[in-house]
């Protein structure tokens, strides 16, 4: 019998508060929150890789696959159930990640980062050249339902938010256990000392492979949620700057806790929204300054503020 840990109870409470607040939040905030949760799911995958000492600049590959699975599933397979579309994306992504993982888990550091980037750019190139899929414009996503429930006009955003909250909560609860598990800690051990890991009888590649595939699946769910929320997919989902944003958010939050990607994603999306609003021609500069400040003053991310406080109290 598994008992809920304190941080898991807090995650459930936070999810409920966020969900209930959607009833009184303006539409733009509900929409932004859903996109932030979707991004956080992808970032959770980036964090999983970072805990194993790997930086991926190509998580946009799986984000895009999840998004396009939703688009293509509705368009060509007449699937309209959101969960089935998300599942379709996860299946396709996991299949691809299982192939790519065989190669990528052989590489470390800049080589891993550049290879992940290269694969996401290959998908971007293919989609740009696919005129049947709208080329650079992409295409719209069909109206969706959940287990037969069709959101009423004007309630699509809040339904998408609840869906995102449920999936993100499940992912966060799983990752909270995963980070404390043998496999989760083996990833950290690989980051620290691969020689010792092998001499303990642990296969580095096996551990990294499983970690990589799970991270890809999370990326796919994030992409699917984004497609369902935005109602549109296009090749930029696989573009390297999108993957860069996920790394940015991961650095912003830190790798210390499963909640960190969510906090960082909300901050990132709000900062970007206001930066674009206030400085339409130089909003990237604002993001750059924010990242610089984080690296200088909080090298372990925003989450380190909480751990510092806890340590100080102790």
């Amino acid at each position, binding site marked *: 019998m598994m008992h809920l840990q304190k941080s898991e109870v807090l995650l459930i409470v936070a999810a409920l508060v966020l969900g209930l607040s959607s009833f009184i939040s303006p539409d733009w905030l509900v929409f932004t929150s859903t996109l932030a949760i979707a991004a956080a799911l992808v970032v959770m995958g980036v964090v999983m890789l970072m805990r194993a000492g790997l930086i991926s600049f190509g998580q946009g590959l799986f984000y895009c696959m999840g998004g396009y699975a939703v688009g293509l599933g509705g368009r060509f397979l007449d699937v309209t159930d959101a969960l089935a579309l998300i599942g379709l994306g996860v299946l396709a992504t996991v299949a691809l990640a299982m192939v790519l993982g065989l190669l990528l888990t052989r590489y470390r550091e800049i080589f891993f980062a550049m290879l992940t980037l290269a694969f996401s750019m290959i998908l971007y190139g293919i989609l740009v050249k696919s005129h049947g899929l709208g080329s650079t414009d992409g295409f719209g996503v069909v109206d969706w339902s959940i287990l037969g429930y069709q959101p009423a006009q004007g309630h699509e955003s809040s339904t998408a938010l609840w869906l995102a909250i449920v999936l993100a909560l499940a992912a966060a609860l*799983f990752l909270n*256990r*995963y980070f*404390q*598990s*043998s*496999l*989760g*800690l*083996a990833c*950290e*051990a690989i980051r*620290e*000392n691969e*020689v*010792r890991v*092998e*001499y*303990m*009888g*642990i*296969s580095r590649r*096996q*551990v990294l492979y*499983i970690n990589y595939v799970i991270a890809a699946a999370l990326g796919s769910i994030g992409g699917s949620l984004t497609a369902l929320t935005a109602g549109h997919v296009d090749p930029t989902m696989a573009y390297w700057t999108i993957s860069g944003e996920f790394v940015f958010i991961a650095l912003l939050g830190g790798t210390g806790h499963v909640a960190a990607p969510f906090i960082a994603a909300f901050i990132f999306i709000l900062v970007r929204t206001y930066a674009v609003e206030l400085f339409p021609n130089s909003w990237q500069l604002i993001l750059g300054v924010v990242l610089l400040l984080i690296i200088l003053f909080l090298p372990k991310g925003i989450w380190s503020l909480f751990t510092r406080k806890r340590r100080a109290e102790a």
Partner: protein
Amino acid sequence: MTDILKTQGLSRYFGAVVAAEDINVTITDGEIVGVIGSNGAGKTTFINMVTGYLPPSSGIINFGGQPIGNLGPRKLMRRGLARSFQIPQLFLELSVLDNLAIALSAAEGRQLNMIRPVRTPERISAADDILEQMNITQYRNEMVTAMPQGARKLLDIAIAMLGDPKMLLLDEPTSGVSTDEKYNLMDTVMEVVRRRGLTVLFVEHDMEIIQRYVTRVLAFASGVVIKDGAVDEVLADAQVQELVTGKRHQPQTEQGDV
């Protein structure tokens, strides 16, 4: 007593450089064997070949009667051959308890479990047990970075012992440890080794440690074993004194000679 480790014609070349050549060694169950030699003599190359870190250029390695020359560290560990390192190989940013918990989960073959916490009550108890045996209980909840060198050496050896190995290879267990600490460290290690009935092969530069803790010595020079035998016999050997221990051999003179 049965043979546990046997090498025949074991050699390793790096291009034209001979790191180890024609090493024929047989170690029997329960022996405590020291490996001595000056820097570059081939000791670590020998250990690295035996523990799967370095594939031999030629020769045969048998462990427990089975050939292991083409096996990597992971498979050797599972067969009961463990090692520690001259520079302790630990997870510096993890706690001592987590270092041991990972090793224990791997020893149980549960390293791929992704739901159950690595710190189970059974593993915590086993970790506490080995920490107590190694006299490093006070560092239990510390990060490895907070440990002094001697304690890190002990933790490195403790981790090697967790897979319940049959044979332990220790690469310079007292290097980087103060003179005051080295005997305590070796007494602790040897007490655990004796209790567990392990066969031990250890590389060591300190001849006092060799004389005190081993029963048999392999002396290496220029990649070959120049002497293999009982401690006193090997350390008294003229060639060993000249090439390994650094004591110039004095030819015996007739009484009365000047």
